[in-house]
């Protein structure tokens, strides 16, 4: 039986995790369960860059994943990066089981603006759908408003809609149908 697990890496406000759970439940046909949060893995903080190594976080998510987990989605306040790029909003295994979303650059405060819950929730919805879409094999979509379009800055996240385009949506429906309740 397919189950999607949700967890926090480091401290994440409870309401934010609740939002993430709602987003996944509304969109995914499988039950969503929580697993206890994990601390930031040792060596995952890059002191020089003041950011967390996305690759190390993904490794920790994979190592601690419940065996029956079809997908595991991690949410963190840490600002994520990979060696070649200054930041990533999130990361996912393409057609795999694990994904992580960073809240850091989704927050208005990051850009020197007052906090805004509604905006944060909207951006989180887009990033959760985007990274989970990758785990189901979707690559970036050329439709600019599709949630699977590539966003290289927050403006592009904001210009997306909180849904998949017709083509990406149909792809997911086929994947779910083919899975017959088991992990696709």
């Amino acid at each position, binding site marked *: 039986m397919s189950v999607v697990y949700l967890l926090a890496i480091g401290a994440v406000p409870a309401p934010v995790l609740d939002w993430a759970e709602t987003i996944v439940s509304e969109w995914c046909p499988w039950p969503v369960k929580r697993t206890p949060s994990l601390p930031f893995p040792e060596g995952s903080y890059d002191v020089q860059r003041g950011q967390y190594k996305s690759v190390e976080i993904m490794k920790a998510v994979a190592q601690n994943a419940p065996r029956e987990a079809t997908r595991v989605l991690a949410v963190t306040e840490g600002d994520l990066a990979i060696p070649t*790029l200054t930041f*990533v909003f999130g990361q996912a295994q393409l057609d795999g089981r694990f994904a992580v979303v960073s809240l850091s650059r989704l927050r208005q405060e990051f850009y020197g603006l007052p906090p805004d819950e509604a905006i944060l929730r909207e951006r989180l919805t887009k990033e959760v759908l985007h990274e989970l879409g990758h785990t189901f094999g979707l690559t970036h979509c050329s439709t600019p408003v599709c949630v699977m379009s590539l966003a290289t800055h927050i403006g592009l996240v904001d210009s997306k809609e909180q849904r998949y385009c017709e083509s990406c949506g149909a792809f997911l429906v086929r994947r779910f149908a083919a899975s017959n309740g088991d992990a696709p």
Partner: protein
Amino acid sequence: MKKVWPILVVDDEEVMSESMAAWLREDGYRVDTAPNGQSAIDLAKKTDYAIAFVDLKMPGGMDGIETMMEMRRVRPDASIIIITAFATVDTAIQAMKEGAQEYIVKPCHPQEISMLVSRILKLKKLQTENVILRKKISRKYKHHDIITKNPRMEEILALTQEIASLRSTVLISSESGTGKELVARAIHYSGVRAEKPFVSVSCAALTETLLESELFGHEKGSFTGAEGQTKGKFELADGGTIFLDEIGDISAKLQADLLRVLQERRFYRVGGSDEVSVDVRVIAATNKNLADEVKEGRFRDDLYYRLNVIEIRIPPLRERREDIPLLAEHFVQTIASELGKDISGISGDALKILMDYDWPGNVRELENVIERAIVTSHNGTLIDTDFSWLTQRAQAAQNWEVPDVPLSELERRAIIAVLERKRGNVKEAAASLGIDRSTLYDKLKRYEIVH
């Protein structure tokens, strides 16, 4: 589009290459990774990578620059992007000198990489399209696509193949509308110059000054409006072929200039003092009898002999009537398809009308006639009534009461009448008269018709 372009990431640190590869895979690319230069080269021998990201510093074995140089030998078309953590001007200069397409300092903004990759791939896509189009054009103009079963035409086609790879000048003479440019292209695209440009110039369409500038280019300020240096058609055709249509219409001065280019392969741009050298094959064409023009003193005999190294005379359509059904069928197929009309053929009665007609405008007139019939027809096959106007045209020509004026005056009046009917549209008037535009321009000049 993305999936057809494989990308290679080369770095001794696995975390760097794998994280970069994962990010690119999310964008839909097929990405391989290599931990050192040698593995990268081994992979490149098997896969035609569009882009290779290569880390500059890789301890032990080949460094980034050496890897890039070897990669360029194995895959000259791959775009190489050097990545480094420590930017110095020296390494950047060395990387670019050795052929790196880009040089990026890590970490860089995701947008920078994304735009870089899409810019390179856009260029590669255009290059690939260019190769495909060149191949298509080459196929289109190969001799077997010239439709004929006339023995004289078949001899001409055999000749185009024989002379395709020579540099000798060719003179093609025939009436308007017989396909002089098609034969010239068949020569060009069958020979060693096929990959180089084929540049066509209609000498009758331009005034002497403009034609001189068109052929040889001009320097900045050489005449009013010459704002910058401009290459002429001879320079643009360098390595390839220049097709000079209506060569019989060029002025005495241009005849002298052209003779010099043919003799020395060098010329001056208009207003320029530096000589320009070119390697161009010249194919000239005319609908005049150049030998007569020489006798009348209107065309230089030395230029005529220079041009007339290989002479091709294309017979008019009325002298190869056996080609009419073939050509008509061909035009029905292509034009109906282009216009989206469901017309599959041509009836026997209709074909008889086409066979009986004299085709003063030759193959071009036949093409125009078929197009007109296809546009107006409501049947699945073109029938005799679709061409009744052609019969009327032929009868009108036979029954025409000719006024007592010189032939040239008749032609002048005919041109004015058609131009008025076409509201000054030269293209349409030329089509209606069954001649090409350059011939019409020539006649407008000759008869001093202002339109």
